[in-house]
């Protein structure tokens, strides 16, 4: 791998021990993954939650601070393990607030914008076409690659901050345009496309579609044809949520949406290979996806959650409208997730109060994935959700059971205590 003068200076320690430490790791990464050169980094997004990183992660960040580390590029951060505005609403394990606070303290020292959001691409870290990213958070990197044309691998939570401190990163994977070419083809039945989405159904439908695409493509770059022109931001956010619970990579070439896929031929780098592996997605595939995402047939729900990835302000409006004058059933928790910036906006618009009056909770900066869920909910807890990403990431031995459905079905479950699917069942 070729190193520029700037790389050599940083590797030699001329810019301090944190930069040298970061460069040593990045050079090993570049050599292992056969990068030909290091390139400038333009943007960074870091892991924040104590539950995932644990004590080692906390010590890792504090060590970078001790060495004088500072982010050289605009840097935001992912959700944390707690909702500091609603500390009394959840049962946090002992020691969590102190440790989560130490992570925030380290981030302040490193110069990280404390956004605590899994949707930086819709807020305070919007990359431009062709920019190089070191982002954790697959859904965000998926959107940045697939919708905005920025270049980022599904970066690991160790390498991302080190790249931000070095301001450089090895050019391999999706940072290299030679790898941004379709490898398989997904065709969406026009009859299905007409039925997807709409009020109360956007998130569940398009996250399920993303899962179908991702499960088929796995570690290949899929070219997707048949999406509507002028797809909504929330629909695209939902499709890109497939990047990690289904798709191993973070690039979907969405024909008519992705800047590198104006046509199907362009997405394949010139022409569609005659023997390309194809998937046809129709209403039956969607029905199977919904069925697969529920792992219980129980009607009685204990918790209803929505907001993975975090809700936009328009999606929060939608929740308030669906709740209307109804109230959440006694004994059921209805939790909606967003980040602190959007939460402030929701407060100004009166949405937080409307949701609270109904007996639901709009949280800030966290979600069931980041929270210590085993501590909070046992395996007998039944959660209804409209997020495939949440369902897949949180499922497993000793964890809650799930019903999957649309936002409308989830809101009705919160109001009645009964999950009764009306869509794709």
């Amino acid at each position, binding site marked *: 791998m070729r190193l520029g003068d700037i790389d050599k200076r940083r590797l030699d320690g001329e810019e301090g021990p944190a930069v040298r430490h970061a460069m040593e790791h990045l050079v090993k990464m570049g050599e292992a993954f056969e990068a030909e050169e290091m390139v400038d980094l333009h943007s960074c997004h870091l*892991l924040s939650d104590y539950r995932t990183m644990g004590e080692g*992660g906390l010590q890792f960040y504090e060590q970078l601070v001790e060495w004088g580390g500072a982010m050289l590029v605009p840097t935001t951060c992912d959700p944390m393990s707690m909702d500091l505005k609603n500390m009394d609403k959840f049962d946090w394990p002992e020691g969590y607030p102190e440790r989560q606070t130490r992570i925030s303290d380290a981030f302040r020292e490193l110069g990280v914008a404390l956004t605590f959001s899994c949707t930086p691409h819709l807020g305070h870290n919007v990359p431009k076409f062709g920019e190089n990213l070191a982002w954790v958070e697959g859904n965000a990197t998926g959107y940045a690659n697939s919708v905005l044309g920025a270049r980022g691998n599904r*970066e*690991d939570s160790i*390498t991302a901050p080190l790249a931000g401190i070095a301001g450089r990163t090895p050019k391999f994977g999706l940072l290299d345009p030679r790898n941004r070419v379709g490898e398989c083809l997904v065709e969406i039945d026009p009859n299905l496309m007409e039925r997807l989405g709409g009020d109360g159904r956007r998130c569940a439908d398009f996250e399920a579609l993303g899962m179908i695409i991702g499960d088929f493509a796995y570690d290949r770059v899929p070219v997707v044809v048949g999406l509507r022109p002028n797809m909504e931001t929330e629909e695209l956010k939902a499709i890109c949520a497939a990047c990690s619970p289904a798709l191993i990579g973070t690039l979907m070439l969405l024909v008519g949406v992705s800047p590198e896929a104006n046509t199907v031929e362009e997405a394949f780098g010139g022409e569609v290979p005659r023997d390309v592996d194809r998937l046809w997605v129709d209403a039956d595939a969607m029905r199977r996806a919904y069925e697969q995402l529920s792992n219980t047939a129980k009607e009685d729900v204990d918790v209803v959650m929505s907001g993975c990835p975090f809700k936009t302000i328009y999606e929060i409006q939608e929740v308030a409208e669906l709740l209307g004058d109804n109230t959440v059933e006694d004994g059921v928790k209805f939790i909606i997730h967003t980040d602190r910036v959007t939460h402030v906006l929701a407060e100004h618009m009166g949405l937080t109060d409307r949701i609270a009056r109904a007996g639901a909770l709009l949280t800030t900066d966290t979600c069931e994935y980041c929270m210590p869920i085993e501590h909070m909910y046992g395996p007998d807890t039944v959660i209804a959700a409209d997020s495939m990403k949440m369902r897949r990431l949180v499922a*497993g*031995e000793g964890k809650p059971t799930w019903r999957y459905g649309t936002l409308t079905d989830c809101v009705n479950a919160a109001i009645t205590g009964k999950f009764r699917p009306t869509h794709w069942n």
Partner: protein
Amino acid sequence: MGETITLHGRPISRGVAEGEAIVTDKALSFIAAAITNDEGIVRMDGHPLQGRSVMGKVLVYDTDIYSTGAGLSFYTKWKIDKSTPRAIICREMHNIGGGFTIYTGVPSIDRIREGLPWDLIGDGDWVRVDSERGIVEVTKRS
């Protein structure tokens, strides 16, 4: 002892380690929610390794799925809980697995030339990974 075969692959994290193999042909994640930090037990829903520990083993799997948080979860497993595998062999190493094995120095290797690693290495085989030289020696369980 059974027969020993030698395989060749692409070194990712350089080093030498050996141990008993635990093998799957499926993707894995090292996030704390998917593999516990304290004992290295796989908790992914329906995964063939669900309920088994990867601690102290030579782990063979496909590639890294799920959260990018796996890097720092793996670091905690390595630094605090000592619950990581001794070495890792993947069909195709994701940069997530590359990142956490390189940073911690746990030897790792991928792209085994002789075929798919789960076809060549079985559960309980004794495996020596020399990723300095890109070599894996497999002594079959007799």
